[in-house]
C-alpha cells in the first residue's frame, strides 16, 4: 500500500539496517566541512573592525545555537509523532536527540559567555536571549531525566514527549528575544527574508560551519539512535541474529 513506507520508517530494524550505509558519508561530509570551516574562520576570514579577533567565535557559536534550536524541533516533533502514531522509532529518536541538543545548547551558552567577556565586559547577563537559552538547556535535561524516570519504558516515552511538546513555547521566545526586549545580545546576523548584515568574506565560512554542524548533527543523531535501538530491541530475534552473526568465535 502507499502507506507502507511510513510503517517501514517506524521500524527500528529497518532503520538500523539502512542507516549503517549512511554513517560514513554523513560523518565524512560533516568532518570535512567542519575542518574547512574552522580553518577558514580562524585564519582566513578578515578581522572584524569593531570586535577584533574575538568575533571568530561566531563560527561555532551561531551554528551551535542553530542546531540547539533545530534539535529541539526534531526532538519535539519526534515525540509528537510517537504520541500520535505510536511509532516506536520516533520515541527512540526523541530520546537520542535530548543529550545531543543539551550538548549543543551548552556549547552555545559556553562560547557565548566566553565571547561576552572581551566584547561586553562580562561573562553573563540575565538578558532575554541568554536566559531563554538557559531554559532550553534545562528543558533538554528535563526530557533526559523524565524519559529515564519510569520503570516502564512506554511511560517514560509518553511523559518526556509531552514535556518536549510543552517546552516548544520557549522556541519562539528565543528567536524573538533580541527584538522584544532590550538586550546586550546583537540581533540576528543571518536573515531569511532580507539581506544578511554580514560581509560575504565572513558569510561563506559561517554558512560552511552551519552546514557542517547540520551534517554532524545528523551523523551523531543516527549513531545515538542506532545504539538506543540495540539497547531497546535486545530481546528481539533480529538483534540476536545480528549480534550472534558478528560474534568473534562461539565457544
Amino acid at each position: 500500500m502507499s502507506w507502507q513506507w511510513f510503517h517501514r520508517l517506524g521500524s527500528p530494524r529497518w532503520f538500523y539496517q539502512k542507516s549503517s550505509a549512511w554513517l560514513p558519508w554523513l560523518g565524512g561530509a560533516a568532518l570535512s566541512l567542519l575542518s574547512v570551516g574552522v580553518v577558514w574562520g580562524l585564519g582566513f576570514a578578515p578581522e572584524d573592525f569593531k570586535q577584533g579577533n574575538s568575533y571568530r567565535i561566531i563560527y561555532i557559536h551561531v551554528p551551535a545555537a542553530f542546531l540547539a534550536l533545530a534539535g529541539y524541533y526534531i526532538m519535539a516533533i519526534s515525540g509528537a509523532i510517537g504520541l500520535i502514531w505510536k511509532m516506536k522509532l520516533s520515541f527512540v529518536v526523541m530520546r537520542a536527540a535530548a543529550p545531543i541538543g543539551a550538548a549543543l545548547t551548552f556549547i552555545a551558552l559556553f562560547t557565548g559567555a566566553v565571547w561576552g567577556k572581551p566584547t561586553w565586559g562580562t561573562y553573563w547577563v540575565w538578558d532575554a536571549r541568554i536566559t531563554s537559552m538557559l531554559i532550553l538547556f534545562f528543558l533538554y535535561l528535563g526530557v533526559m531525566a523524565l524519559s529515564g524516570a519510569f520503570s516502564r519504558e512506554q511511560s517514560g516515552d509518553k511523559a518526556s514527549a509531552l514535556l518536549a511538546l510543552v517546552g516548544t513555547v520557549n522556541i519562539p521566545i528565543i528567536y524573538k528575544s533580541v527584538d522584544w526586549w532590550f538586550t546586550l545580545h546583537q540581533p540576528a546576523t543571518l536573515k531569511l527574508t532580507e539581506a544578511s548584515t554580514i560581509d560575504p568574506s565572513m558569510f561563506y565560512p559561517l554558512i560552511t560551519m552551519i552546514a557542517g554542524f547540520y551534517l554532524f548533527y545528523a551523523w551523531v543523531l543516527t549513531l545515538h539512535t542506532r545504539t538506543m535501538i540495540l539497547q531497546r530491541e535486545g530481546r528481539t530475534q533480529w538483534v540476536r541474529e545480528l549480534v550472534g552473526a558478528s560474534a568473534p568465535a562461539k565457544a
Partner: protein
Amino acid sequence: MQFQFDSLASFFAMDGHGPYVWASYGMVVLVLVVLAVTPVFRQRKLRRELQQQLRQEEARRRAATTRAASQRAAEVVE
C-alpha cells in the same frame, strides 16, 4: 583570500583575544568528540553483553538436553 596573521605566534595570540577564541574552539572540539565517540563505545559494550547473554542461554540449553539424554539413558539401563 589570504592568511590574516603575520606569524604563527600572532595567530595564537589573536591580538589578545587568543585565550577566549581558543577556549571556545577547544570546548567545542571536546564536546563534539564526546558526542561522536560515546555511542560507538556504548554500542560495542552492548554487543558484548548481548553476546554473553546469548552464550549463556546456549550453554543452558545444551546442559538441559544432555540432562534429558542421560535421563533417557538411565531409563534404558533400568
